[in-house]
């Protein structure tokens, strides 16, 4: 049987890969996908705790996190489309409207 610490370790590694992706990529869509990866890593941690406690509340929380992630993806992609229509780029180093 696989112990819970292996699942938590996998979750930590995936979260770290997500952080690296957010920090080094400059395409806004890829940054967004890395954020989804980090959300998935935390979901895995929640599900493993829920399974090992034998309690379904953690899985319900993951369900709501999925719904919020779907809403967030829709709004974020709409913002990316709006930015692209404004200055024809999704490169975050070229978007400097709020930078001083």
């Amino acid at each position, binding site marked *: *049987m*696989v*112990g*819970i*610490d*292996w*699942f*938590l*370790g*996998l979750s*930590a*590694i*995936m979260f*770290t*890969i*997500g*952080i*690296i*992706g957010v*920090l080094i*990529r400059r*395409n806004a*869509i*890829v940054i967004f*996908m890395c954020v*989804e*990866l980090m959300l*998935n890593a935390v979901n*895995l941690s929640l*599900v493993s705790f829920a*399974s*090992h*406690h*034998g*309690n*379904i*509340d953690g*899985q*319900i929380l*993951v*369900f*709501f996190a*999925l*719904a*919020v*992630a*779907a*809403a*967030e*993806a*829709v*709004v974020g*992609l*709409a913002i*990316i*489309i*709006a930015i*692209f*229509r404004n200055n024809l780029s*999704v490169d975050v180093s070229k978007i400097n409207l709020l930078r001083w």
Partner: protein
Amino acid sequence: MIVYLFILLAVLAVGSALAMVINKNVVNSALFLVLNMVSLAGIFLILNAQFLAVIQVLVYAGAIMVLFLFVIMLLNVGDEEKLFDKFRVKYFLAFFLAVGVMGQIFYSLAGVTDMLPAISENMAAIGTVEAAGDVLYTKYLLPFELTAILLTAAVVGALMIAQHKIKRTENI
């Protein structure tokens, strides 16, 4: 048997996540993220969370990633050519920051690793659609309805943002 399956799925998940980060082509990145989510659904099955495994494939790999691919192809985003062609201090900084975060998580995990619970025996009856729906429509009915309002608001907001006409002639 379960252990080998877990190792296979974990290697697949980590490998596809890494491939997503270092791939220059955006479409390939999105497809690697789909692979990552499908292997994560398999790990959910190992954890006896059948309902969430199905939802993960349907909602994440099915709906959200199709939306991502749709936007990528709509915007016709080019490859990020100069991703690794020259050395940057930023990459090292990002790497060490992320390794610091991971070390902190592992350190806090190592402190409690003997207190973590073993997998529960009655889990096979808990992760099913029946059990999830039973809790979802009784104990969590109000958050469930609020989720519907949230999704409606998200759709309306996305339409508002994406349809907004930018007046370019104004400041020329």
